[in-house]
């Protein structure tokens, strides 16, 4: 009996001191430990253990019998008349023994030859040498981090298998009739203007003569955003990426900036003296192209908004597009030139000289778009006299490929879903043509417009292409619907534009 209780006492003593790593705990800690945990756990444990041996029926808390019975053998039990109060005796905790035991254990850890050998072997494996005989030095003036916004170009190499390259593209079903036709009365039939844009929040902006209308593709609601006066009319529209700001270019030159969520004009920028036919955003920079061939970078946050002025075209600028990563700006003009400028993202240094000036097109270059999966590839299409679509590698300035479209190229859009692109054409068929890239085989021709197509816009989910025709219609083609076998998330997203309301009129 006495041995049992002694062992128990020893155990409880060791347990009590468990959180203390070095030597006996300070007095306050002992006190708090004893008053909370030890009185609750250890003493009960002892109390429970003891009566189970002898009389299981007895409850230890109620009676003082175990205490009184073993009082002489176990000093841990209070022999106080104080009733329910537990007053510990420090005699039983055996700090000397437990301290010795704990220290012994620690020394064992340090001293054990197998373990120290193991450690040495591990460190040699990790470092290739014994770390104790080595100093690891480094130069304190560190190398700079890569520039902001730079993304590893190798991504193309690695993601090639992930992108839907070998989707059964030719056999997938493409509806040959438009999903929906909206009326667009008084749309200006002018090749050099850019009159539609579809925002990130699924709002389509359409410029009809002097007015700009917003068509909410989710709800079908139509709002008139603005109406210009006099001889002025809207010549270009551009949504800021991932936002609700709309840039509006006008025929007289001033560029207006509108907040579409509040239907409020934020500012007017007088960068040009003639009509602004093309605009493109690069974060806070709105680049505008004008009839006299001038390009202006406007920082919309600053009072003095003109950051740089570029005069590299001799005639009207009709195509303007920043690449998705902001590294390049492409501009096409009526002087048959396609210029590519470099613009480092996040920096205000814009070069006024183009890094490449391509003169291969034999007509005005209006159709421009950057490839979404190869950020350095640009597709461009020429006007009536040219009728070709060309592909450029802007890292080295090479024309990668070209294809004869047999018709004026009015607009080009790359698909986000498939490795394809769609081009919009004029006379003779006024069709949209879907091409596979890079094989440049025709996937489909979508006919329906009765006059040439002016512009293209893509829904934010990438499934729908909207074409604005000179026949005063807007037609929506669901030509890039994701494969139904694909993930459900994509299906959910693509189902958004089906909740269509009434048309524009």
């Amino acid at each position, binding site marked *: 009996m006495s041995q049992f209780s002694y062992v128990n006492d020893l155990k409880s003593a060791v347990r009590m001191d468990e959180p203390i790593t070095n030597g006996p705990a300070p007095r306050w800690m002992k006190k708090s430990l004893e008053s909370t945990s030890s009185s609750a756990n250890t003493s009960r444990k002892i109390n429970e253990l003891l009566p189970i041996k002898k009389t299981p029926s007895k409850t230890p808390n109620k009676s003082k019998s175990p205490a009184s019975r073993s009082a002489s053998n176990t000093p841990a039990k209070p022999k106080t008349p104080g009733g329910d109060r537990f007053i510990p005796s420090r005699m039983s905790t055996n700090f000397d023994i437990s301290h010795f035991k704990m220290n012994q254990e620690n020394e064992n850890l340090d001293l054990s030859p197998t373990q120290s050998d193991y450690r040495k072997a591990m460190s040699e494996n*990790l*470092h*290739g*040498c014994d*770390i104790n*005989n*080595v*100093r*690891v*030095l*480094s*130069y*304190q*003036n*560190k*190398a*700079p*981090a*890569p*520039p902001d916004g*730079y993304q*590893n*170009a*190798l*991504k193309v*190499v*690695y993601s090639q298998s992930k992108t839907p390259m070998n989707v059964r593209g030719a056999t997938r079903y493409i509806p040959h009739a438009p999903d929906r036709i909206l009326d667009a009365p008084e749309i200006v039939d002018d090749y050099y203007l850019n009159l539609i844009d579809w925002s990130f929040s699924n709002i389509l902006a359409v410029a009809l003569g002097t007015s700009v209308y917003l068509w909410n593709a989710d709800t079908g609601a139509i709002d008139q955003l603005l109406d210009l006066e006099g001889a002025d009319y809207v010549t270009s529209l551009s949504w800021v990426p991932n936002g609700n700001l709309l840039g509006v270019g006008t025929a007289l030159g001033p560029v207006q900036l509108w907040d579409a969520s509040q239907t409020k004009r934020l500012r007017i920028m007088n960068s040009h003296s003639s009509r602004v036919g093309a605009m493109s955003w690069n974060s806070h920079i709105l680049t505008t192209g004008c009839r006299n061939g001038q390009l202006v970078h406007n920082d919309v946050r600053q009072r003095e908004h003109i950051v740089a002025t570029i005069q590299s075209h001799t005639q009207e600028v009709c195509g303007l597009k920043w690449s998705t990563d902001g590294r390049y700006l492409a501009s096409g003009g009526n002087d048959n030139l396609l210029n590519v400028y470099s613009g480092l993202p996040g920096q205000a240094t814009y070069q006024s000289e183009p890094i490449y000036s391509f003169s291969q097109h034999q007509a005005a270059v209006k159709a421009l778009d950057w490839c979404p999966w190869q950020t350095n590839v640009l597709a461009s299409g020429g006007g009536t006299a040219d009728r070709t679509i060309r592909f450029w590698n802007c*890292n080295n300035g090479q024309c990668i490929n070209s294809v004869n479209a047999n018709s004026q190229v009015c607009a080009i859009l790359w698909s986000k879903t498939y490795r394809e692109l769609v081009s919009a054409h004029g006379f003779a068929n006024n069709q949209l043509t879907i091409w596979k890239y890079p094989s440049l085989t025709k996937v489909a021709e979508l006919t329906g417009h009765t006059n040439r197509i002016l512009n293209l816009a893509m829904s934010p989910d990438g499934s729908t292409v909207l074409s604005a025709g000179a026949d005063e219609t807007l037609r929506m083609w669901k030509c890039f619907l994701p494969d139904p076998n694909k993930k459900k998330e994509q299906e959910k997203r693509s189902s958004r534009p089906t909740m269509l309301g009434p048309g524009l009129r």
Partner: protein
Amino acid sequence: MATKQQSQNAITLKGSAKLVMDYLNFGINSILFQRGIYPPESFKTEEHFGLSILVSTDNKIQQFLQPVLNQMKDWLLEQKIQKMSMVISNVNTKEVMERWDFKLQYEGSGDSNPDSVGNKELTTIQKEIRDVLRQICSTVSFLPLLDCPCAFDLQIYTKPDVDVPQEWAETAPSYIANSQELQLRSFSTSFHKMDTVVSYKADF
């Protein structure tokens, strides 16, 4: 005549240190390019060891590399360096993504007499170095994509009795959790033997 011939083809200790440093310089530069750590526009091609090697034109990178390599050359002649690690880590999270170890072994008599002459031909050494540099380029095919902005640092493992200049400080060695290692070819200049090992994160 025979002795003259020998001294022309043979390599001295200084020449060996220069070769090792050249190898490290071009190795580091081509890793920076091949792994896409800095934009490819900031590199230009140079002919070295019969290879066209892409060398960074960024002044800040060169301002970092040149003093480090010059200091290493001094230490190399004193036989103080055991290893040089090029650590590529995520800029934002500081997580180590990749580590290139250049391990040095000292061969030959062991004295640092600058007049001692090696017994290996320069063309053979250059061929060996060329093979390793080619291998570094080819590692792109199996190393995982560094899909985050990355920075690099050089850690030099020296003997304890080395003189540390002011701009240098001791750091903790870097490890990659759950890493995979691959040893590339080695080359030897008859004074120095260089092993190149790349370790990278294995979970991808």
